[in-house]
Structure formats: C-alpha cells, structure tokens
C-alpha cells in the first residue's frame, strides 16, 4: 500500500467524523428551529381555577378593535401574589390582540430597567407595583391598590384586624385602560366646586374625593370643576355632573341650572351630606326620589366604627338595578357612613326610579335633630328595610328622541371619600354608577373575580404526626423494602 495517499480507513474515518459533525449540527438546527417556531406560534392553557381567564364579550370586542401598537408594562415584584394572575390575563389579551406587546419589569431584580421605565413614562421614582398601558402618546396607569379588593375577614388573637384580598379587578381595569388609550375622545365630567362639596383634588385628607377623581380618570374621563349661576349653565360638553356632598344650600339659580341640564338629557350624580339636603330635595322629588331629613342606621349590620354594612340590592318593583347587579352576584357588601334615606317613588309619569341599596329589615331611620339642637334625644321616624340610594332614568314611553336623563342619588357622601372608597365594594359601586350614568352599561358586565384564599391550621400533635410520616415512615418503609430485597437476593 502507498503510504503517501490516504488509505480507505483514514478516508472512512474522516467521512465518519464529518458525518457525525454534520448530523449533530443538523439536529441542533432542527431543535433551534422547533423552538423558534414554538416561540412564535404557541398556545397556553390555564388549568388552575385561580387563573381562570375566560374573557367577557366586551373585552373580546375591545381587543378586536385595537389596531395600533399598544404596550402593556407589568411593573411588579414577581413575588407579589397578584403578579401571576395579572400576567396570565395580559397574555390572554395578547393572544387575541397581536398588536398588544407585554413587557415585564421586576423593579427589585432589574433596577436599571425600572429606572428606564420610570423615566420613559414619567412615573414618580418611588412608585411600585402597577400595570401601565401606552399607545400613541397616551398612557393609562392601573395601580396595584385598584387591582384587588381588600376586606376585613376576622381578628388575630391579639385583636388586630385581618385583611384579605377578596376580588381581582384585572379584566375590568385592563379593558377600560385599553379602551382609554386606544380611544382619542376623552369625555368631560364636571363636579360642583362650591357649597362645601368634597374636593376632587384632595387625595390626602380623609374626606377628600381625590382618589375617586383618580378612578374616574381611569375611565377615560377628564374631570373639571364647575360653578353654576345665572350666567353659568352646566357646560355643553358635560357628560356627567357630580354634586358630592354639598354642606351649604344651593341657591335657586344653581338648582334651576341643574333642572335645565336634566331636562336636556343630562346625567347627574348626587351624593348627600349627612348634615344637609342642600335645598336639592325638591329637585330630586321632581324626578321620583324622596330624600329624608333623617339618619339611617342598621343595628347588627355595622363594622363597629359607626359605619354600616349594606348588602341588600333588590328593588321590590324593578328587581336589581344593572349598576349593583355585579355586586349582588358576588355577594359583596358596601360600607356607608351615616346615610340619609333615599326612597324611590313608585310611579311618576315617564320616569323609572329604582332602589339601589337598602338596609336589612332591622334598619332604623332617626329624625335629624334641628340645627343647634346637638345632644337632643334621637326620635325614631321609621323602622324596616330603608333605602339609601336610588337611580332614575326616563322610560321608553317618556323618552324624547336624543334625550335620556339619568340621575343617581346616594344618601351618603362619605362612602366615596378617600377613607372609605377602597373599603368593601365601595369603589365597585362608584365604578358601576359612573358607567351606568355615562351609558357605558356594557362595561358593567365585567365584574370582579373572587380570589380564593388559603389558610390552614395544623396542631402541634398533627404536625409531629405528619413529620413522622413524611420524614420517618415513608422513607423508612422504602428502605425496609430495599433491605428485604437485598437480603433475599443475598441468601
């Protein structure tokens, strides 16, 4: 054999090496390709009850309408228990709306990226845990506090109140935020900034309405102050007029302006202060609602701090109003301070007035003592299920083309202040009433989802017993079987 030319073995060995190398590269490329394709076209199934992401029809329609690129930033600590439900919900959204891009930032693990996001979207430096939607220069922020509802569920042995998350508001807030960033029309809502009403700019003191203002802004509403007078009617672009607990009487000019506004299809949200009816009782009576000069309590249905718990939503004549139906369906309660009675009158031509909330049959209405008679004995005016909120709308027969006034009367203005807004389902009530007044009733279909809680208790004895099983009996039995097998095979 000629040693200067490669022999058969050398050639076959080289071809073997090349074959091996090419085969490995090809399989590697196949694996990479499969992963690349799977990354582009994937499916996700949520099998856990707590991640149930069946979306409402409204969300599906909203997502189908999104054609511009929208970015959703989940700015969250991943250890936060809401992180997973939020992410899964948004991933479900992105499956239906491919132009929705999801970005996750854990500010604990990624401080540099967190700073970038804060700078890009002009977020305050200490802001944490939020979901942000951005589209064509418009940004909507959904804060962590709004994403879930917290309720007291009991007390610790040392008397401290235990709070638990009870409901998850993700779908409702995300759909609303998406609608807001992709909709260029921002509607105006006005609030009466006179007569001692609650301040919509005050987010710090207990009786401010600043937090409610923030929630209304999340509904794509632009909130503006307004004053009424002889030459100051309700602005033409007003979609919703809010009168939040006036402490002083409105004059006849102001009331006349409100009457005119309602007669032209206006939407008014009226919350009464505990101290006065502000001269508005006649206006609301014209619309089928009687506001009592009283204070309502519900013994046995309180929170121990003077506030009362309400969970009766049915109206004897009209059933459950759409704005409180999601609350009734979820068996959610509301917390009111000291409401006055608000009775929906049964029949007024062309008007339909519906009771929204009422006390239990043990409710008591005390007559308001006259001004300056502090300390006077309270006189019981009536007992039974006493209504404290009502909604009025014009019926089909009474409706004039293009004009459909709506009025919501709540006998307590404290229930939506900065302190009580996030208690129980108060913020849900506010959300639902605003949407009903704005004729966005379809949004009421997206109710909060209940959050399942886990808490177990294991006694000392059970713990030792369990440890005995887990650390002793089970491994020990396996070793015993092994020893038997070993012994049997040995002999």
């Amino acid at each position, binding site marked *: 054999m000629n040693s200067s030319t490669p022999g058969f073995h050398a050639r076959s060995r080289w071809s*073997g090496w090349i074959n*091996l190398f090419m*085969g*490995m590269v090809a*399989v*590697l490329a*196949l*694996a990479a390709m*499969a*992963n690349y394709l*799977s*990354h582009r076209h*994937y*499916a*996700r*199934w*949520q*099998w*856990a*009850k*707590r*991640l149930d992401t069946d979306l409402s029809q409204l969300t599906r329609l909203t997502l189908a309408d999104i054609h511009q690129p929208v970015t959703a930033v989940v700015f969250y600590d991943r250890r936060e*228990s809401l992180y*997973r439900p939020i992410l*899964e919900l948004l991933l479900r959204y992105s499956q239906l709306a491919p132009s929705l891009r999801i970005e996750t930032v*854990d500010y604990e*693990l*990624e401080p540099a*990226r967190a700073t970038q996001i804060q700078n890009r979207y002009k977020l305050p430096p200490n802001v944490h845990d939020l979901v942000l939607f951005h589209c064509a220069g418009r940004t909507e922020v959904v804060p962590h506090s709004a994403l879930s509802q917290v309720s007291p*569920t009991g007390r610790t042995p040392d008397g401290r109140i*235990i709070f*638990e*998350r009870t409901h998850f508001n993700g779908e409702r807030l995300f759909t609303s935020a998406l609608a807001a960033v992709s909709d260029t029309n921002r509607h105006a809502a006005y609030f009466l900034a006179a007569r001692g009403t609650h301040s919509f700019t005050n987010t710090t003191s207990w009786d401010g309405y600043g937090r409610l203002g923030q929630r209304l802004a999340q509904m794509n509403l632009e909130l503006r102050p307004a004053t009424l007078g002889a030459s100051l009617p309700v602005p033409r672009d007003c979609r919703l007029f809010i009168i939040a607990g006036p402490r002083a009487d409105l004059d006849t000019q102001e009331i006349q302006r409100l009457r005119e506004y309602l007669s032209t299809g206006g939407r008014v949200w009226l919350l009464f202060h505990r101290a006065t009816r502000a001269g508005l009782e006649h206006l609301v009576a014209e619309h089928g609602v009687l506001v009592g000069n009283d204070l309502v309590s519900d013994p046995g249905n309180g929170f121990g701090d003077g506030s009362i718990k309400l969970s009766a939503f049915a109206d004897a004549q009209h059933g459950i109003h759409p704005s409180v139906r999601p609350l009734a369906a979820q068996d959610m309660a509301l917390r009111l301070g000291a409401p006055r009675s608000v009775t929906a009158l049964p029949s007024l031509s062309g008007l339909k007035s519906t009771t929204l909330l009422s006390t239990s049959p043990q409710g008591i209405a005390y007559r308001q003592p006259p001004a300056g008679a502090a300390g006077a004995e309270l006189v019981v005016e009536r007992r039974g299920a006493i209504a404290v909120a009502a909604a009025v709308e014009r019926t089909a027969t009474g409706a004039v083309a293009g004009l459909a006034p709506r009025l919501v009367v709540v006998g307590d203005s404290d229930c939506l202040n900065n302190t009580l807004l996030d208690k129980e389902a108060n913020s849900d009530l506010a959300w639902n009433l605003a949407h009903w007044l704005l004729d966005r009733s379809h949004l009421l279909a997206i109710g909060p989802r209940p*959050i*399942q*809680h*886990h*808490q*177990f*208790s*294991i006694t000392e004895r*059970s*713990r030792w*017993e*369990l*440890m005995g*099983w*887990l*650390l002793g009996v*089970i*491994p*020990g039995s*396996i*070793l015993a*079987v*092994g*020893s038997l*097998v*070993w012994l049997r*095979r040995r002999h």
Partner: protein
Amino acid sequence: MQAFLTLVRRELAGHFLSMRGYVIMAGVQLLLGASLCITLEALNQKPFDMPLTEKMPNTGFFWLILLLVAPVITMRTFAHERASGTLETLLTTPVSDWAVVLAKFTGAWVFFLLTWLPALATPFILTRYASGMGDVDPGPLASLAIGITLLGGFLMAVGCFASSLTRSQIIAAMTSFAISTGMFLIGFIAVIRPPWMGDQSALFSHLSMLEHMGDFASGVVDTRHVVFYTSLTGLFLYFTHKVVSFRRWR
C-alpha cells in the same frame, strides 16, 4: 419492540433489585418531606392567596432534588456497562443502538417518575392533617406533574449522554450535574436581566427552567415549554446515540 421492553425491564430491575434504587427513592422522599415540613411551618395559620403547589418551585429543596437525583439515577446507565465490559456484549446483540439508548433512557425516566410519584399524594395527605386546606385544585397538580415529567425527561437525557462519554460513574454524575446546573443557572440571567441585555432577554427567558416551572406550578401549560423540553431531550438522546455508535464504529 420486544427487545426494547426487555432492555427497559433490565434497567428497572437494576434499580429495584439492588439497595441503590431504594436508597435514592428514600432520599428523595426524605428531602421532599423536609421541604414540605419547612413550608408548613412557615405558612401555618397565615393567610396566603396562592396554592401550595405554586410555592413549591420557589423552595431550594425542589431544585436540589431535581438536579441532584438525576445524575445519581443516570450515572450508571452506560458508564457502569462500559466499566464492567458488558456494553460491548450488549452492542453485539441483534438490537439497534437506538433501542439500547432509548431503553436506558426510558428505564431511568420511569424510575425518576416513580421516585416522585408519592409526592402527588402530598396535598391529599395535608388535607387530612391540616384544617382549612380546602379542596385540592387538580389543575395545577396535573400541570406540575407534566412539568416534572418533561424536566425529568430532559435531565435523564443529559444524564444518559454524560454517562455515555465515560466509564467512570463519578465523572458521569459530575458531568451531568454540571450540564444540568449550567442550564438551570442560565435561566437566572433572564431573571436578573443585566442592563446591557436587549432582545436576548427573550432567548434567556425561553431557556429559564425557573420560569417554565413557575408556569407549570401555577397551572399553566405552554406549548413553548413542552417543545423546549422535548426538543432538548431529543437532542441529547441523539448525541448519546452518536456517542454509542461512534464507540461501536471505532
């Protein structure tokens, strides 16, 4: 097929007819039990709003068991046969190389799953001993089982590959542990995301075992994770097959 099943039986017999298999199983149960006891101690009488199954992959024990047990199970698959000289005999029988590789892999995988099987009963045991546990949600339990099965398959394939490279079981175990732990640690890059990282974060996120297992434990089954683990398992089995064939060819 008959030859394949015979080889799988032989592999399983190797585990169950010696003390070794039982020691591994008992060790896994001991670590799982310890993990559960620590978790129970931490959560006793405290409200939490995610199921226990979701908390599992966040515990160090979970990953310790996965990453440590896999090399111990697979280190002997090929290395022991080579050291004892039985591999050549096996390869001269009328059985294809693929049948040998797949049988060894299947045997190791089945044994791995059997070591985890008692863990499925844990939530049900807990409902007996702890009050207020509520009903067990079978969804996350099933998805976690799928996750462990897929991850187990991948780790077994890595172990078989490492074992096929050497005749020393210790070196095989170390190699397997190094590859698995390397893959596990790569996932942390996706979690930490250094500032220089741009679009690569999607790649590291795709490789992150922590993220995959986080999904499975929360009751989410994602086709990306399924493809990831099956493709990598296939890849390492192919490599193993090539190494075994190469030895025969050499």
